[in-house]
């Protein structure tokens, strides 16, 4: 497959080259196939029910004909048995039709919902698996678009498509057989109508494919803009971005409308076009048959039956057009979804993980080199050993590469070359469970999920008891303010005065880390929003955590601009341009007169 369309790379392009277009179509169909496979039994069952219900439906008119042709004369002759039979059979057929219809309506829903659930969970799981590198490029709005409006397109296809396609096809086959049985010449005429229909369908496919692709692109854009506005509403208001936003959104909504109208209009040519071809075919059959009636080759009655059957043959064409329309739409949507699913996480769990149940927390960088993707080298050849139990402070100017080192240890990224080990085991060989249990990173952005305060702390260790959660909150000094919330630990963070300030959010996220009790704790500017007393409390708790209640202490990596945090560290590393330029205890470095001494002096001056 060409790399141009691999994954989400060329997602916003609706006008693909022929080979690219074929590649994404194949990918999309493969996804559809993989969704059907687990439910294929139900799929065929549903189709069987549709077919059966069509069959019982046909029985009705046949029974009416039987009643009029046979039961009526019999009744006039004094025999009421055929009438009773007709009545009973009609009732039976009615019950069967109704029952089967109800069954296939539910069965279709089960089928489509099973497939949707499957796909939803697949997309969710995959987006969770994808590395941060991907998430930094691909916006949340896009993922939401994939999960909502793209899935909606598939749902439309599944809900209406299957039954109409099956019943329509069946109907056409039966009618075609009738026509052939009556007169093969007319049968050939009917088949000939298939030729222009085929070309019309080809034309429609070619154009609607582009229109539907555009529609996916534009709707994703609309969603991305919407989500960005709603999540950043404070800034929108504070800086009066409303008019500008309204203009952008209005434009996007209009684009979306136009592309929707275009796709509907294409269908508006396609569908009446099919009806027209069918009707012309009826006229041709009448013309040809009519001349043969004149010459006496064909009985009038047969001609009438032929024409009526021909007319009926084209009846389901309407439904088929609708099916094809939603199929095209769903396919375009699945092209995007399958692209997302095709993305490969750059940070992958190992196939054969090395177990590490109780890590001590020794971190070892050996000849590590790192760059983002194919960018410039951010960390050039680094050798660094952090023994278990050591508290290390990373210091340096903004952009020096401190966070990069932290992210490498947390395995948000993989090293480009060299190796990074925990207790001698390469991080890439650790299972996700072992890795995350042993290494936890707390960042500056303290994100709270909807749910209660307790839920949010429990994220650190879901099996923790309420006591343990409160312990953790007490350790970081969050207990008091949590108790002040309307429902204490059970306060919903989105409801009833549960809104907390950014400092409080940081405390909660700290409590998470405390609850997790990892062997290695990484704090990346995790105290920046705290006031001094809170910071002091956190530091106190931190000291306790790091000393450890169990035999061994914990390893900690602290990034902070506030050097008060740094002073308590066992060791300070000064980072500059991805290199470690100073390494020693705080006292040594202050005495050494280097960068750290410089920073420390400036910081001292900033106090009081």
């Amino acid at each position, binding site marked *: 497959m060409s790399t141009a369309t691999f994954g989400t790379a060329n997602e916003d392009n609706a006008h693909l080259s022929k080979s690219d277009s074929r590649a994404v179509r194949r990918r999309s169909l493969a996804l559809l196939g993989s969704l059907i496979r687990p439910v294929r039994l139900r799929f065929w069952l549903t189709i069987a029910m549709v077919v059966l219900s069509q069959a019982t439906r046909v029985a009705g008119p046949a029974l009416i004909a039987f009643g*009029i042709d046979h039961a009526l004369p019999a009744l006039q002759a004094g025999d009421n048995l055929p009438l009773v039979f007709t009545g009973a059979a*009609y009732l039976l057929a*009615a019950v069967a039709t*109704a029952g089967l219809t109800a*069954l296939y*309506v*539910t069965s279709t*829903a089960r089928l489509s919902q099973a497939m949707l659930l499957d796909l*939803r*969970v697949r997309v*969710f799981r995959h987006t969770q698996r994808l590395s*941060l590198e991907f998430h*930094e490029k691909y916006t949340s709005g896009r993922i939401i678009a994939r999960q*909502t409006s793209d899935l909606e397109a598939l749902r439309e296809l599944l809900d209406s498509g299957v039954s109409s396609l099956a019943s329509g096809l069946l109907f056409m086959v039966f009618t075609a057989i009738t026509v052939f049985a009556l007169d093969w010449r007319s049968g050939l005429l009917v088949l000939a109508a298939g030729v222009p229909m085929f070309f019309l369908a080809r034309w429609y496919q070619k154009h609607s494919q582009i229109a539907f692709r555009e529609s996916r692109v534009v*709707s994703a854009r609309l969603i*991305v803009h*919407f989500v*960005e506005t*709603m*999540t*950043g*509403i404070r*800034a929108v208001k*504070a*800086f009066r971005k409303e008019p500008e936003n*309204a203009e952008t*959104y209005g434009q996007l909504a209009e684009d979306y409308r136009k592309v929707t109208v275009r796709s*509907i*209009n294409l269908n508006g040519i396609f*569908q*009446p076009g099919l009806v*027209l071809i069918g*009707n012309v075919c009826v006229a041709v059959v*009448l013309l040809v048959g*009519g001349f043969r009636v*004149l*010459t*006496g080759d064909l009985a*009038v009655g047969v001609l*009438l039956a032929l024409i*009526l059957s021909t007319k009926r043959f084209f009846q389901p064409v309407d439904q088929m057009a609708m099916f094809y329309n939603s199929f095209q739409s769903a396919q375009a949507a699945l092209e995007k979804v399958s692209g997302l699913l095709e993305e490969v996480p750059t940070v992958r769990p190992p196939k054969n993980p090395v177990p590490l149940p109780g890590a001590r927390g020794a971190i070892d960088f050996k000849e590590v080199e790192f760059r983002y993707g194919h960018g410039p080298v951010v960390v050039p050849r680094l050798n660094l050993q952090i023994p278990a139990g050591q508290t290390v402070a990373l210091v340096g100017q*903004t952009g020096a590469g401190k966070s990069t080192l932290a992210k490498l240890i*947390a395995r948000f990224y993989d090293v480009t070359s060299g190796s990074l080990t925990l207790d001698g085991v390469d991080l890439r060989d650790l299972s996700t469970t072992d890795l*995350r249990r042993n290494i*936890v990173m707390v960042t500056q952005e303290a*994100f709270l*999920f909807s749910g209660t305060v307790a839920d949010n702390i429990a994220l650190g260790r879901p099996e923790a008891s309420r006591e343990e959660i409160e312990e953790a909150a007490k350790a970081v000094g969050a207990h008091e303010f949590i108790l*002040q919330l309307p429902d204490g630990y059970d306060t919903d963070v989105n409801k*009833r*005065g549960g809104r907390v*300030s950014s400092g409080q959010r940081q405390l909660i*996220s700290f409590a998470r880390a405390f609850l997790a009790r990892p062997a290695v704790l990484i704090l990346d*500017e995790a105290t920046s929003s705290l*006031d*001094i007393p809170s910071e*002091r409390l956190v530091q106190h708790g931190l000291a306790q955590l790091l000393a450890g209640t169990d035999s061994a202490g914990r390893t900690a990596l602290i990034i902070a601009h506030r050097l008060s945090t740094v*002073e*308590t560290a066992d060791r300070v590393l000064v980072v500059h341009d991805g290199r470690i330029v100073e390494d020693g205890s705080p006292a040594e470095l202050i005495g050494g007169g280097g960068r750290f001494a410089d920073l420390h002096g400036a910081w001292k001056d*900033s*106090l009081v």
Partner: protein
Amino acid sequence: MAKQTLFFRSISRLYPHVRPIIPRLLLGLLCALLASIVALAIPQVLRVLVNESLKPGGATEAVWVAAGVILVLGVAEAVLVALRRQFVINPATTVETRMRVSLYGHLQELAVSFHDRWGSGQLLSRAMTDLNFLRRWMAFGAIMLVVTTLTVIIGLAAMFWMSWQLALIFLAAAVPITINSFRFRTRFSKVARRSQDQAGDLATTVEESVHGIRVLKAFGRSREALENFNEQAEELRQTEIEKARHQATFTMVVTLLPELALGAGLVVGIILCAGGQLSIGALVAFFATAAVIASPVEFSGMLLAMALTAKTAVDRHYEVMDTENTITGPSQPSRPRHLAGALRFNDASFAFEDAPDKPILANVNLEVRPGETMALVGITGSGKSALIQLVPRLFDVTDGAITIDGVDLRDFDVQELRRMVSVAFEDTTLFSSSVRDNVLLGASERSDAVLGEALDVAQAHFAYSLPDGVDTLIGEEGLSLSGGQRQRIALARAIAARPRVLVLDDPLSALDVHTEELVEARLREVLRDTTTLIVAHRPSTVALADRVALLEDGRITAVGTHTELLAGNAHYRYVIASLDQEPRDLDTELSELEDQAEEVTR
């Protein structure tokens, strides 16, 4: 859960939007009706033509005429089908788009407190899925509902004309169907509403899982997130199946009852025929007509479900549209005669709407003089962030007042107020656009000079060395910046707006000491004539301020200069001073450290 409303009352709310397109909708309806009449007429015309004019040895013209008539009718049918779409599509999508844009506009206006309560996924499902559905219903469902109803009525009339006895039997089926349709309506609406709400919640969960991806990854909680999502998606699936089950039951009823009636009619009809009260021709015609209206009746289950879903979509739309914007300007906004920038809190109190018993701020009195820089100091949770959000009216005071130059904030035009007041929040929101657009967002003059100065004050010179310089796309869709970089852009944004009143929420927290110093030096110049309220956690930030206000449990307990407060206020010392005070061990450790350091330098 919203309470059940009447179908027509809900749908009639669409009237103002739909009014301009009613003529076109009617034309579409007319085309749909004509198309179905033509479709019904074609077989009848065929029958007549074939039976009357085609005989062996007849004239060839008759064949041409017959084929010609059929062709014309066929073309007419196709054209009518195409016309129906043409008439309806543009207006229906226009209404959809207009509703979408007005929803978005209204959401932008609604107060922050509204957005705190509503997940963006819920709002998104209203803006996209609901309105898409509504459009399809307007363009197709509603029209087909009318066409179907008319077809059934006309068919019934024809049946009465043929045989009133049989028609009565058929009509008898309508009674249980009607009763059932009421039951269906209440049940289905409830489930439809639930499914739409659940779909919205699911979208919110997706959004959170992506925004919180770093936390989920850091703690290795992807599996729990997936389980939670799976549970929610499963609930939605159940609801959808329940919905289908209701629809299936109703479809069964509308299929079964007419058929049962027809079965009875067949028996009765044959008896009537045998008794000579009915001609065979009439019997045949009766059933032919019944066959024609059977499928529309069956179809009605689907159409009704569609109409009900459209109704809940309308309800959900107006639920948001009916929410009143609580933060609006007066019709006659006032403004101070001379704008100096004196900010004053008079007994200002604030509590969140849904927790009035837990006031965040209580009787705050504070005066910031024009051009003065006032630091706001207090421990986490004392109400600093809330106080700051009151100034640009992101929230309103619940009691008391805040004034600028003597004019109550609520008497200003809201946009005007936000032009005067500029904010840099602690959690920085950057939009997906260039550095330039982000910085100049609130600026009245969008020039390079303003941009350059703002970036310089905030020490955000790094912006020039980004791949495309200040035109580099940042924000969610662009380059991701570090915390310190984001904070400096946000600070530059607040400065570039050149406000009378500047509100800064701990704007230097993510900066290293050197950068902080540089920013402060430049900031001091800018702040000279700007009234500034600045939340400070560090002495270094307080140093920017002329005076300091101490916030304690939602009250201002002291105002004075840093030195005054440091000398006379124990709580202030506790909050701001990091060198003395507890914890003791840290303290002794520190002084030891200093001693050592001094020794070493000597």
